[in-house]
Every structure is written in C-alpha cells, then in structure tokens.
C-alpha cells in the first residue's frame, strides 16, 4: 500500500495488528531487583521484620562488655561472616512467618478533636521523640525541624553529631534519634520518586567502636570494598543476608537493594545506610560524596520543605500558595501523618492515620484532597456537578456535601497494599474556593469503621 493511500477499514485493522511496540532496557533495569525475584521477595517478607528486632538486640549487646569484645575481634569496620549462609533458628523462622497484614475486628470509631501532634514519629505506639529544653522546640512544628531534632538526639546520646550540610536534591531530612544506652545518633532521610515510592537513607554515628552486631549484619569478606572518605579509610558493601521462600537458611545476596558505607574518624564511627532508591541508583561514589560533605556546623544546615512529606499546614500553605482547610475533628486517636502537594494538579493531599500505625505513605486511613476550584480538571468537575444534582444532604452555609455511591470495584489499591472496600465513604464538597474530597480507606491493624454521619461530622469541622 502506498504511503499516501487511504486505507479501508480492513487495512486499518491490519495496520493496528501489525503495531509491535516493545519495552526498552529501562523496564528491565527497573525490575531487575523487583520484589518477586527470589532475593527481594524473601527479604521483603521476612528480613525486614527480623532486622528491626535483631537490630535492637545488637544495640543491646553493644552496651555490654561481651558485645564490645565481640566487635573488637574483627579487623574490618563490618563484622565479617564466616560463611555465605547460616541456618535459621526456630524463633527466626517463626518471626519470618509473621504475616504482613492481619484481619482485625470492625468497630465504629469515635470522633474527637484534632490533636496538634502529628503521628509520623510515633511508631508502634511509642514516642520516638522526647521534647527537649531547646527554645521553641515545644512547638509542634519546630519540633520536627532539623535544629530541634538534632538537639534532641544529641541531648540523649551525649555528644555533638556530624551531619549533612543540608537536604540534597534527592534526600529530605525526616528525623533524628538519639539512643542514650549505646550513645548513638541516627539521622533519617527520605527520597520520593515521582510515583510516590519511598527510599530511606540513614546516617548513624557513635563514639568508640562500631556497635556489636549479629549474624544478620555480618558481611562476607569478599563483599567488602575498600574506599576512602577524604583521608579516612572506609568500607563499602552492597547486599545483605536474605531468606528464600520455603527455606530454613539465610544466604548472602549481593543483588539486594541496600548498601552501606562505614568509616572511622578518630574515636568516632560513622555509617551511611541506603535502601531501595532504585530510581536514583546511588553507588559507592554517591555515598562517599555524602560522607565527605558532612559537617559539625549546625547553623549552616539548609532544610528544604519536602512537598511529598510536609508536617504542617503552614508549610503546605507556603508550598501551595493558597489557603487550606483543616479539620477540627477526626476519628479518635487519628493524627496528621502526611501532607503531599502535587504541583501540576495543584492538589494538596492530607493523610490521617491512627496513633501507633506504622507510617505508611498512601496506606489508607482518612485521606483529604484540596484543589482550587479553578484548577480542578474537567474530568472531575462534571462528576461533582452530577452529584450536586442528586440533592443528597446539602449542608448549611451553601456548602454542598454528598455521599458517593458504593464503589463498583470490590477492592482498591494504594501504594502500599490493597484494601477491601465494599464501599468507601467518600465526600466531595466545595468550600473556601476549594474542591475538597474526603475518603476513608480501612487499613489493616486498625479495623475502625466510619459511617456517613461520621464523615459529615468531620467534614463540617473543616475551616
């Protein structure tokens, strides 16, 4: 057929069938260490849980003479493993079998006034931050800024910390912790991909020797790469011990999406630990560059507001440039967990989770989006108008609030997991020049239920 000929329907069908688009190498690169690969899947299911518990055990050991003696017998900064695998104990196998989700009983939630403290640093119901007597740090907003977090950590650990000079293009400061028992300080940073995927960077440091660690943190000698941080000898490792599904032993995997850099400066030890930044693909040179940039100069710290992880509506209003609405009431024990701003859509997304929830961005809970009416895309406004026409329970002061019909889909997904939703309570209304959408997604480990009346009560409290 001539390029200029106009094809008939059959020829168009043939042309359509002949289109052979193929994904490129980027897709393969992105998914090379995807979670369904044996090493990643195993790590996801078991090692994350084990690591947290065993890290606590290791930190405890570091405080004992036995633990210190154990650490000192190693030549490397990293404890070296004598084998590339080791058998799991019965207890470890039981821990690895802990399911990631649990079904909880359903109960009706109570509605209560909003607490000013965010829940982002509340893990497992235990406060990870203790207010310290630094001027202004009792302010719920300032308490999460670098200056207060660092001062708090230093007060607990008992020494001055070295830190990055500021947030980088990729990494945003998230929090700092001091551990009194082991005299350690951790700085936590977070990177967020454009798809909302999170990666973590932890900079830890302490006085004396590296904390004694267990077999899970050990490294085969062949995996250790010698480098330098300035004039200081350092060691770099990529990989970790993982447990393959259905096996009873942990084996070393160099494909694991984690990397560590360790070095010492006099009597001070340092470690940078990066996990899961597959879209940034940092390597040894990037970690060394971060290490070399670290400073003791506190006043110079340049902290940026992370539009994907804001902690206050004040920051959010600065970033968005418009006045935002905040709820005066929430389900009892719910707190603001995350504020994100999508600049292109001009949409502010607030997520509220129950106290004690693991901080899981986009993991459900009560989600509220606010968008200036002028920026609402046509594909959403007609929907709102259509709902308007249903005449469902408009509220006073000209504010229309409408309950949507139950979802047609029996389940929905968010970035972290799937939630079952025979229906999702959802309200859309206009207030203060904004289109406000409020959803409630049930989350595992909670099981609370919001009904229409609860949703309306919360919605009416926005101002």
């Amino acid at each position, binding site marked *: 057929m001539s390029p200029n000929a106009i094809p008939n329907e059959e020829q168009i069908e043939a*042309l359509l069938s002949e289109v052979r688009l*193929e994904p490129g190498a980027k897709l393969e690169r992105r*998914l090379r260490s995807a979670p369904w690969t044996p090493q990643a*899947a195993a790590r996801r299911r078991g090692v994350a849980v084990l690591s947290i518990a065993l890290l606590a055990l290791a930190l405890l050991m570091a405080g004992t003479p036995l633990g210190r003696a154990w650490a000192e017998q190693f030549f490397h900064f990293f404890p070296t493993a004598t084998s590339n695998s080791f058998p799991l104990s019965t207890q470890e196998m039981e821990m690895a079998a802990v399911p990631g989700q649990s079904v909880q009983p359903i109960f009706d939630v109570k509605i209560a006034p909003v607490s000013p403290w965010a829940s982002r640093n509340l893990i497992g119901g235990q406060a990870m931050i203790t207010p310290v007597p630094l001027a202004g740090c009792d302010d719920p907003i300032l308490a999460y800024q670098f200056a207060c977090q660092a001062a708090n950590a230093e007060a607990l650990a008992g020494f001055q910390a070295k830190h990055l000079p500021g947030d980088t293009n990729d990494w945003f400061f998230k929090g700092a912790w001091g551990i009194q028992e082991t005299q350690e300080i951790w700085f936590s940073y977070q990177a967020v991909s454009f798809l909302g995927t999170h990666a973590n960077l932890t900079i830890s440091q302490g006085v004396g020797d590296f904390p004694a660690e267990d077999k899970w943190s050990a490294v085969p000698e062949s995996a250790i790469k010698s480098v330098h941080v300035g004039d200081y000898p350092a060691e770099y490792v990529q990989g970790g011990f993982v447990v393959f599904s259905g096996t009873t032993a942990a084996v070393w995997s160099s494909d694991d999406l984690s990397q560590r850099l360790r070095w010492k400066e006099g009597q001070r030890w340092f470690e940078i630990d990066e996990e899961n930044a597959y879209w940034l693909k940092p390597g040894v040179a990037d970690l060394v560059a971060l290490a070399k940039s670290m400073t003791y100069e506190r006043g110079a710290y340049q902290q940026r507001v992370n539009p994907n992880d804001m902690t206050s509506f004040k920051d959010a209003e600065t970033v968005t440039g418009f006045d935002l609405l905040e709820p005066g009431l929430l389900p009892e024990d719910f707190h603001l967990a995350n504020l994100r701003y999508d600049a292109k859509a001009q949409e502010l997304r607030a997520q509220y989770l129950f106290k004690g929830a693991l901080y899981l961005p986009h993991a459900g809970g009560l989600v509220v989006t606010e968008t200036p009416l002028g920026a609402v895309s046509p594909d959403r406004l007609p929907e709102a108008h259509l709902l308007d026409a249903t005449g469902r329970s408009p509220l006073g002061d000209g504010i229309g609030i409408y309950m949507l019909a139950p979802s047609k889909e029996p389940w929905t997904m968010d970035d972290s997991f799937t939630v079952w939703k025979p229906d999702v309570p959802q309200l859309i209304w206009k207030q203060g020049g904004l289109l406000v959408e409020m959803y409630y997604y049930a989350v595992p480990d909670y099981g609370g239920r919001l009904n229409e009346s609860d949703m309306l009560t919360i919605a009416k409290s926005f101002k």
Partner: protein
Amino acid sequence: MNLFRPFQNPSPIASPAAFSALYERNRLPVFRYIYGLTGGPQDDVEDLTAETFMRAWKARQHFDGEADAATGWLIRIARRLVIDDYRRRKARPVGKPDEAGSAAATPEQNALDSEQQQRLLALLAELTDEQREMLVLRYWLGWRVSAVAAQLGMTENNVSVTIHRTLARLRQSWTQSQEN
C-alpha cells in the same frame, strides 16, 4: 459489613516463582496497553508498566481468580495507574502522543514499521478513551471480542459495533488529514 476481605484460598500468583511467570507472560501486553492509553512517551510507559507490576505484587494475596484471569486483573491495575498518572500530570492529557516526540524520532517511532502506522498512532489519540482502549485490547493485545467485552463490562455485540464504528471513524479522519 466487613471492610476487610477474609483470607480464602491462597492466591495462584502469590509465590515469587508464580509471579515471575506472570510478569514474563504479561510484560508486553501491559506495556502495550499503557502505551495505547497514554500515547507515550516510552520512558513514562515503562515507568507505569513497572509500577503496575509492583502494585500487583503488593496486592497479589488479594487476587483469588484463576491464574489465566490475572491478565485482566493486571490491565485493571494499569488502567487505574494511567488515570492516577493523568490526574498528576494534567499538562499532558491522556491519549495525546508526546508532542516533543514529533520533532525527532523516538524509540517507539523507530519501532513503527511504516509512515502509515505512525499516522495511525496519531489518529488513535483523537479517539475517545473508550474507543482507544477497545482497539488496543482487540488489536494490540490480540484479545477476542468476548474477552474485550468481559473486561469492559459490555456486551459482545456492543463491542463489535463500537469497534466497527471506530474503524470507520479512523478511516474518515485519515481522509481528512490527507486532504489537509
């Protein structure tokens, strides 16, 4: 009312090995489906394809259909992602081919065999989302009309008629673009 889905039989795609096989079988269809809905560019399509499988992995325990039905499930996840992505990037409407790509040949353009296929791709962008999705499922993924109908919740007759009309519209658009 239960907000949580009770755990039932183990999902047939729950194990890494089963999911890996699922990925190998469906990598290409999912990529083409997303490409068909968004119009590219290829980099973004690959990102969305990767994210589709990442989300499917996270949700695999909740898939309780036969393994053969997983393709439709993946397509629904991909569709949702495309919509989410569209809401995030309203500057580039769904279905409009990457305009930057018109200046220089992109990898996907190089993959198209003929000038006619490139023109066809441009004309697809002018269809409604429903029409384009139907053609993508039918011709790019090679689904039977019955499967397209089941996926989209339509009758087979409705799908057949819509496809027929869409092909006619494409021909008409082709004629008009030729005249211009």
